[in-house]
Each structure stands twice: as C-alpha cells, then as structure tokens.
C-alpha cells in the first residue's frame, strides 16, 4: 500500500494518486489535520525491532504493509485552541516527535525521509542540505547576501521568475533519475552524471530522494539552492509525471509505472 500524507490540492499528490491507480497500487490519502490531529497509531520497540500500525478510516494498516509513503505536509497543523497555550505547545511537540519516530521506523521508501531539522522547521536544515549537496557535487555554493536568509529562493518556481530571468538552471531528481526542468547546458548534465555515485550517497545519507537543484553556471558551476519540498504548481505535466513515475517505480520494486 502507498500512503500519501498531504493534500489533494497539491499537484504532486494528485499525480501520485493518478499514477498509483494506474499501477494498481492500493493508495490511501490522509490530510495533515487528520494525520496529526486524529489518526490513531501504535509504535512498539523491543530491542532493535519495531512494529506498529495506523488506523485509517475503516482500515487498520500494519506498518509492514506499507510499500511507500509520500510526505507532502504543509506543516500548518496546530493543536486545538481548547488547550491552554502551554498545553498546545506540549501537544504539538509530542505529536511531531511521535510521527517522526513512526516514519523513521518504516523500512519502505519514504518521499522524502526528512531529517529532524525539517520536522523542527530549523532554518539551518536547508542550508546544511545545500552545503552537503554542493560538497557531493564538487560545486561551490552561491553566496547568500549578508547574514539574512532573505535572498533564498522561495517556491513555487514559476515561468519567468527571478531565477529564470537570471539564467538559473534547475534540475529535478526523483528516485535516482535526473530530470532537467528546462533546456540545460550539456556541461551541467555531464557533471551530474559524473557525480552520480556521490549524488546517490547524499540521497541515501539525507533521505532526500525527490528534490530540485538550482544552479548558476555563469561563473563555474555553483549551487544556489536545493528545494526538498518543491512545488510543481507551474511545472510541465511531463516533468511532473516523470518525477512521480520514478518514485513509484522504486516503491513497487521497479514494476512498470508509465509516466
């Protein structure tokens, strides 16, 4: 079973729903408010082994039944205001810490298996991902203006946005497949191909398997940003389908999933 945690309004989620149905993969969608606010679950550890389940509406799902999980959580959930503020904060962290542990215990592919920095919304997390990815690629990073984070690209990527105007080249990766966003320089693609092993290692180390890299190439290869929760709102349908199909192929152990 494929479990999608996110919103049907998210174009990437819709594509997962559509292609997984085509691939005859049983799929369940759960919205963030239900997942964090009302989904019953149990996770038990004995020594190094874990077991557990989720209770979806009308359905108990053992964690071992999951073939894949897609995490597209907007991170907007907050506990009921019926609690006082101190309890709201306590419950928020208890719930977040629980779901992180549960998802970490899964042995199936998780897109993306974010580190705790993401769950804690730590601002250093994306910077660390960018720095370590640049190291893996043997590339410099684009200097961020001053000490603030305001110069960082914000999603969603749109046609004609500031990055496109300034010649930034974007490349997606999904389950080890490289998918250029637009026409890319052959040098950039050759560089990524040459660094495939290091890129795969970075993906394995970080748990990030679906993401977009933005490069500046005017003065050597420089990584500007890595977006690990990229919006596909304005991306071409083919790119979206290819990204999802690659992820599904990994979840279904490479059975046929057509983009």
């Amino acid at each position: 079973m494929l479990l999608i945690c996110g919103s049907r309004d998210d174009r990437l989620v819709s594509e997962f729903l559509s292609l997984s149905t085509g691939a005859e993969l049983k799929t369940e969608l759960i919205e963030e408010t239900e997942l964090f606010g009302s989904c019953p679950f149990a996770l038990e550890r004995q020594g190094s082994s874990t077991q557990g389940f989720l209770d979806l509406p009308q359905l108990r799902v053992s964690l071992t039944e999951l073939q894949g999980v897609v995490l597209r959580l907007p991170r907007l959930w907050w506990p009921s205001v019926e609690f006082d503020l101190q309890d709201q904060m306590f419950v928020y962290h208890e719930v977040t810490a629980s779901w992180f542990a549960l998802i970490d215990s899964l042995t199936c592919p998780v897109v993306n298996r974010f580190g705790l920095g993401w769950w804690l919304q730590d601002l250093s997390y994306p910077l660390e991902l960018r720095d370590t990815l640049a190291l893996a690629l043997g590339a410099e990073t684009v200097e961020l203006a001053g000490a603030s984070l305001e110069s960082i690209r914000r999603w969603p990527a749109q046609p004609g946005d500031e990055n496109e105007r300034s010649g930034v080249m974007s490349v997606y990766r999904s389950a080890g497949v490289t998918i250029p966003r637009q026409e890319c320089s052959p040098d950039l693609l050759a560089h990524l191909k040459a660094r495939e092993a290091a890129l795969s290692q970075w993906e394995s180390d970080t748990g990030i398997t679906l993401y977009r890299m933005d490069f500046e190439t005017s003065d050597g290869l420089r990584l500007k940003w890595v977006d690990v929760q990229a919006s596909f709102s304005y991306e071409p349908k083919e790119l979206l389908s290819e990204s999802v199909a690659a992820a599904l192929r990994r979840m279904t152990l490479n059975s046929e999933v057509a983009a």
Partner: protein
Amino acid sequence: MILYLGSSRDRVFPRLMGELENSGHPFALVDEDQAPKYAVTKEAKTWRISGGGCEGRRPVGSIFVRHSVARTLEPEVVGPMSQLQVTLNRVLLDTRCPVINKPSRAFSNYSKPYQLGLLARAGFDVPRTLVTNIAAEARRFYDECDGSVIFKGVSNVMSFAQVWKPQHFERLRFLRDSPTQFQEFVEGVDYRVHVIGEKAFVTRLAAANEDYRRSALADQEEILAEPAELPSDVVQRAIHFTRALGLIVGGIDFKESANGRLVALELNPFPQFTFYEGRSGQRITRSVVEYLIQHHVTETNVFA
C-alpha cells in the same frame, strides 16, 4: 579565543565562566538574553560578532553553545533572541573550529523513541517501549508488562517519568489528544555518563522518586550523586555513540536493575552537567574547558 554562546541565567553559566576565568585562556561571551546588544555580520566567508564584550576582530578557535531558552512569549524578547540564534546557527554551520555542541547535530533527543532506536542499533540494551494515542494499546502493553510500566513524554519538552499506578487508568481517555511513551519499568539505580570527547564521567544517583529530576526539581528533595564505574565496554560505547551523533559532549542516562540489567534511556546533547558536578564533585566543567583549549584551532573564519 574561546567563544561562549549562552545565557547568563543558565545554571551552567557561573561555573563555566569560573572555569574559563581560571583557565587563563582568552574567551568572549555572547549573552543571548541580551540579544539586541549583538550584531553578526558576514563579509565574504568571514563571520564577525560584535557587541557586548565581542569586538569582531579576535579569532575564535573553539566554541561552547548552550542556547538560551526564552522564559517569556513577549515578542520584543523572543524576536531578537530568535533572530540572533538563527544567525549564530549559521555561523556554527560554517565554522571550521570545534563546537560543543553543534545544534544541527543535537536534534536526536527531540524524539525519544527515535533516539532509543539509535541507542539500540549502537548495541545498548533499551527498555521495551510503546508510543501510542490509543488507550486500548496502552492497556495491552500494561498487561503484557505485568503492570510494571512508566510513562513519559515523547519529545524533549520537559516532562517527568511516572510509574503507572491504578489512579492513572482514568487518564487514558486523554491519550487520543496527545500520544505518550510507555516503557517497561526497569527499577534500580540511575547512572549518568557524561562524555567529553574521549573522556567519560560516570555518576551514580539515588533519589526517592523514579525520576531523580523530579526529586531534585519538583519535590525539592536532596539526591545523592557520587562518582561510579560502569563496565569499560559500556563507557566506550557511550563515547562512540556520542561521536557518531556528531557531538563532542553528551549526557547518557542509564538504569541498572537489581539483577544487573543495564538499560540506556536517552542521550541529552546539552546536559546540565553542573547539576551532577555540584553533588558528586567530579570536575566535568573543567574537562569541558580543557577540551575547548586543547582542540582550539588557529585558522578560523569566525571573529568576536
């Protein structure tokens, strides 16, 4: 120079400041409770911290961090402190000098069941544990553990472990609102192992309560803490585990039952080592300062 990022209200502060002064090694402090005093700037790849006692020009060779925790939700306090800490965390990502401890490496105890998995994979014995928001599952676990269960928080938000007693059954109805961690109760002696680089201090604790911190902090009871020993393979594993997490300092809690079973409970990446030192007489703070001096680097991109 050693840079200390922290809070003058922190209980670690006076002892650490005392040891830094006694060491004779130059140091500077960023008191995050006085956030508006400081400015952090970046020029090319060089960071400069100025304000308070920082001049932005003395090279920083090692850093000690215990970020301040806001004791209020007032925006005029929280805002500047958060902004300063975010920027300091960028400095800590960038710096090439040793940092005790990098906040980006210190997340694992945010999720205690996750960290328990790391401890188990590192070879420690860990208690059987259930995290759930389902009352019937908690009850099943209770029965399977013959009614010998404690419950405690899942995250690192302060909470005390409590033995599950009959009067707690009626509280199971609240479980649906907030998942809880249930653990087989290993009754016995508490140990805290503080790791500082390749060194370790083992402290044995005795208190009236199942969670000795409750005795000390909530019930104002005195607890006994004394230097102790644990098997060398356990201590070595504690050192390796701390290093594997990317940390220099860690405080690992153990419990030893009467029949000699030793279980690891959790690792605190920002241990309040002065609490133990003040009772056991072990020179943990001095060891921290010695580490900062011995591993001090001369080539740096941080100036204060």
